[in-house]
């Protein structure tokens, strides 16, 4: 009996709960004052709501108050749902939109679209698809092509999402904490290749000039910087002027591998068609950002850019119609002989789509490009994709969705990856955030590591000795970038003062300068990214100093490694000795190999720069072989270098050659490394 009573009591109430209650006097006869307040709140909310989605957050508190008074108004619930859908608390939208629909199924012509959006964002794929399909019918009846296409695209995204969540990628995704993230939006973080420095964009009240962009109801963007000490990012600070400008949007777009050069988006026209600027740190001081040339910047919106590790290619995004496929596309441009960026070329239909491509990032390996796109098999909004350039075929691979949970139905953007490939950083809005958009770190765990089981069997009835059977497991892919990060500090050998030196990177096989870099004048720090598969000659040069050379032969099979190499440059003074590490001879012969050309050219330049300089070229061997043979070989090799220099126009009376065989070792002859160091060609300044 009791059960029946409760059922009967509840049923009429449930019917009442489904009725749309308008904010009218007849509905609230005894609550006139409260009704008046509620209507006022709705009007105030509408004032913000009508401006743009950027003001929805301001409308929301008013709407909530009105809803407290009357929770059963369809239109108000609909508006609250939309406000939440455009906030950091998207998950709250569903309840309001569902109630709005229940109270009045025709509360808005696009109610099914917004319901679908909430289901889509919460990954309720089937419900989302069903609601989008209802909206498709509405769009068809309205003969609205744009709505129709939008709903169709969203249904595709849901189907993509259903597939992608079936095979999640193994990652840890962590908010990187309050030293970077705050209640304000933080996004677009970029890192140096070794993750020692990070710049990011934020809209905080500490913005330079302190102004608000009233169109979007937020502070102007500024760039902030933080450093990683003992594995933790320290408190970030505004980079200040001239990196940031007063009351304009300054957003960081990329940073060079060594953290010394920034590409910045600057809303220089204040009309949303911003441009890309370059900003360099010299001697510890950030210079004034300089606008890139017209091959990069157009009258349209150039939203971001990054430069390849060798400094010779720039990738940028623009919504210019020329060469584009629709919305923002990725373009590239190469440095010409004069050091200017050449004509832009679209990355083509394999990469660009009719939808937005944005937030482009080239990895320090020089061949893997990451970007965000609403096209391809996005599961909603911008998803992060990667594509790899094949040097042989000169083509980019088909973009690969980075997968769930890196990508979600919402915006997943501004992905960057450390040189080691272990950590990625990107921007996302998540429930565990500090507020609005935050910077998150992704730790890649690689393919699933299957546990190894142990079992026994009694295979032979007659024998007693156990046999261990070894079943070799299939290899697990471990994606380690094939590159070497070379970093260190360049100082004066005597004073230990940091030097701003030029680092020249040479492909010894081709005798081509691949790239030039500079060390930071205030710290002497440098960082160079060396993709595997080349024999590199590295020359460190600084005016008034003898150059220093290094050789790195990095086979293609090499994985990731970091090499610390501090360099001490010696003043040009009598008695200074320099080992020429990029001079190569045929085995046991004195024939110079072609890979030596770049090093010899550097020596010629030094002799030409200081015409009074007289030097001795000396040859040295390791301890293997007979003394006599070693003396003869080292002498012949030194002479071969002198002959080369003379042939190139250096006066013979400035040059002396000597072969010392194994008599002047600079390292142990007991190790392979020591033997290699002892086999060398050296020069010494005799007079200047």
């Amino acid at each position, binding site marked *: 009996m009791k059960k029946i009573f409760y059922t009967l009591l509840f049923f009429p109430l449930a019917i009442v709960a489904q009725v749309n209650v308008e904010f009218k006097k007849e509905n609230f006869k005894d609550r006139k004052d409260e009704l008046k307040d509620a209507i006022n709140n709705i009007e105030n909310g509408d004032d913000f709501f009508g401006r743009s989605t950027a003001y929805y957050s301001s409308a929301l508190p008013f709407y909530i108050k009105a809803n407290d008074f009357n929770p059963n108004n369809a239109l108000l619930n609909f508006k609250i749902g939309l406000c939440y859908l455009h906030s950091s608390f998207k998950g709250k939208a569903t309840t309001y939109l569902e109630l709005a629909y229940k109270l009045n199924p025709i509360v808005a012509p696009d109610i099914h679209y917004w319901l679908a959006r909430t289901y889509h964002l919460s990954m309720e794929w089937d419900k989302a698809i069903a609601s989008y399909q209802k909206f498709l019918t509405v769009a068809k009846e309205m003969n609205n092509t744009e709505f129709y296409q939008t709903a169709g695209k969203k249904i595709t995204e849901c189907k993509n999402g259903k597939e992608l969540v079936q095979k999640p990628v193994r990652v840890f995704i962590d908010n990187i904490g309050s030293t970077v993230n705050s209640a304000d939006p933080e996004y677009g973080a970029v890192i140096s290749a070794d993750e020692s420095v990070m710049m990011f964009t934020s809209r905080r009240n500490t913005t330079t000039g302190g102004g608000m962009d009233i169109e979007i109801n937020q502070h102007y963007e500024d760039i902030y910087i933080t450093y990683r000490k003992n594995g933790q990012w320290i408190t970030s600070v505004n980079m200040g002027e001239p990196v940031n400008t007063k009351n304009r949007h300054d957003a960081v777009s990329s940073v060079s591998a060594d953290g010394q050069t920034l590409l910045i988006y600057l809303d220089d026209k204040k009309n949303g068609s911003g441009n890309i600027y370059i900003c360099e740190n010299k001697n510890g001081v950030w210079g004034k950002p300089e606008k890139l040339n017209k091959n990069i910047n157009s009258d349209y919106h150039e939203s971001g850019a990054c430069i390849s590790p060798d400094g010779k290619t720039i990738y940028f995004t623009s919504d210019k119609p020329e060469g584009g496929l629709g919305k923002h596309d990725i373009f590239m441009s190469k440095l010409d002989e004069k050091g200017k960026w050449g004509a832009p070329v679209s990355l083509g239909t394999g990469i660009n789509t009719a939808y937005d491509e944005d937030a482009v990032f080239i990895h320090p390996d020089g061949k893997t490009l990451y970007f965000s796109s609403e096209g391809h098999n996005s599961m909603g909004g911008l998803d992060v994709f990667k594509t790899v350039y094949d040097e042989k075929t000169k083509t980019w691979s088909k973009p690969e969705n980075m997968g769930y949970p890196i990508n979600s139905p919402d915006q997943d953007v501004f992905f960057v990856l450390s040189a080691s490939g272990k950590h990625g950083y990107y921007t996302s809005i998540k429930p565990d955030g500090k507020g609005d958009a935050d910077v998150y770190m992704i730790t890649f765990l690689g393919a699933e590591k299957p546990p190894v*089981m*142990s079992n*026994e069997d009694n295979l032979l009835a007659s024998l007693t000795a156990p046999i261990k059977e070894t079943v070799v497991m299939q290899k697990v892919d471990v994606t380690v970038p094939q590159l070497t990060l070379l970093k260190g500090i360049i100082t004066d050998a005597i004073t230990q003062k940091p030097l701003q030196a030029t680092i020249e990177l040479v492909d010894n096989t081709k005798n081509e300068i691949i790239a030039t870099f500079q060390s930071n004048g205030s710290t002497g720090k440098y960082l160079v990214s060396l993709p595997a598969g080349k024999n590199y000659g590295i020359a460190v040069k600084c005016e008034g100093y003898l150059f220093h050379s290094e050789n790195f032969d990095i086979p293609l099979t090499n994985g990731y490694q970091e090499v610390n190499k501090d360099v001490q440059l010696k003043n040009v003074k009598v008695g200074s000795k320099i080992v020429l590490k990029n001079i190569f001879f045929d085995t046991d012969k004195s024939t110079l190999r072609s890979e030596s050309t770049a090093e010899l050219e550097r020596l010629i330049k030094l002799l030409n720069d200081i015409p009074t300089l007289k030097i001795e070229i000396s040859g040295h061997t390791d301890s293997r072989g007979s003394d006599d043979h070693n003396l003869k070989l080292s002498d012949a090799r030194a002479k071969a270098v002198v002959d080369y220099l003379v042939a190139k126009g250096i006066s013979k009376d400035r040059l002396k050659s000597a072969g010392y065989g194994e008599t002047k070792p600079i390292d142990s002859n007991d190790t392979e490394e020591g033997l290699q160091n002892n086999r060398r060609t050296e020069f010494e300044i005799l007079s200047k």
Partner: protein
Amino acid sequence: MIRKIKLLAAVLFFSVAANAQDTVKVGGINQDAENFYNTGITYFANKQYSEALANFNQAITAKPDFEKAYYNRGITKFELKDVQGAIADYNKTIELNAKSDVAYFSRGQANYATGKKDDALNDYSKCIENNPAYAQAYYYRGGIKFENKDYKGAIADFTSAITNKSDYMYAYNDRASAKRMIDDYTGAITDYKSAISIDMNVDFVWNNLGSVYRKKGDYKQAIDAYTNAIKLKPTALYYNNRGSAKYDDGQYQDAINDFDLAIKIKSDYAFAYNNRAGAKIKLKDYKGAVADCDKAIQLNSNYGEAFLNRGIAKQMLRDDSCCADWKTAQKLGVADGKTYSSTCD
């Protein structure tokens, strides 16, 4: 995945006693030797080996070229664990009768017992040469070839054993195992089933059948076969195997239940702890997995697989010591340890 295969503990199915030479007829003249010999056989049949030995000694003293007495003394010494003495008597038997099949066969058994597998193999071959229908000689030679990883040779011998003894259940089992080793899973299943059709109450044959089904990826059949083995003899080994088949089939909680039972039967069974850890990893019970691996490592400090699995669980717990575990696994010969630790700082 590493699987360990233990061969069945010392089962000598063909008792050497069965091969004792027949009694001899005692005639009218002095037949002391024959009398001692026959008395010796009676003692041997009653497992009174010392008494048997004394009588065979007297028989030989009375008749120094008494071939059968040497042979029987040899098998008696074998029973008395005097393997070298047995071999000496078999040698004498062969010296007196180079065409003896049993002497070669028994010397083969004795040589195998002392670890001289090559000598044993040669003896079985000589036995077969003297008697091409000697099924047991083929069978034991096949076993040695199996141990020497000559699986095809082993299959040929087990086949000859079956040809000469059609109900040779163990030969079917062992041939199936040899076929398994060369990845002929279908052939192995057929042979295990033949063994079962001869005698369906041998637990290890069911277990072996289950393991081949598992290798073939037919986990349901594997579970059924292991279940039959368990019904006949509920050992920790069989529960551990059935748990692993359930693990392969994605039945992680059921797998844990079997590993629990294995541990209940044999509380120091490191494999079961390690495997339970694997199932716990699949169920995201990483702390539980670490605890099980800890126990497995405590039981066997050189258990590389347990170190590897503990590293996997620790990584998911964000415990950086996972790298140390993977490096240890690598040192202990688990190749994946190197792959995993290469991702560490």
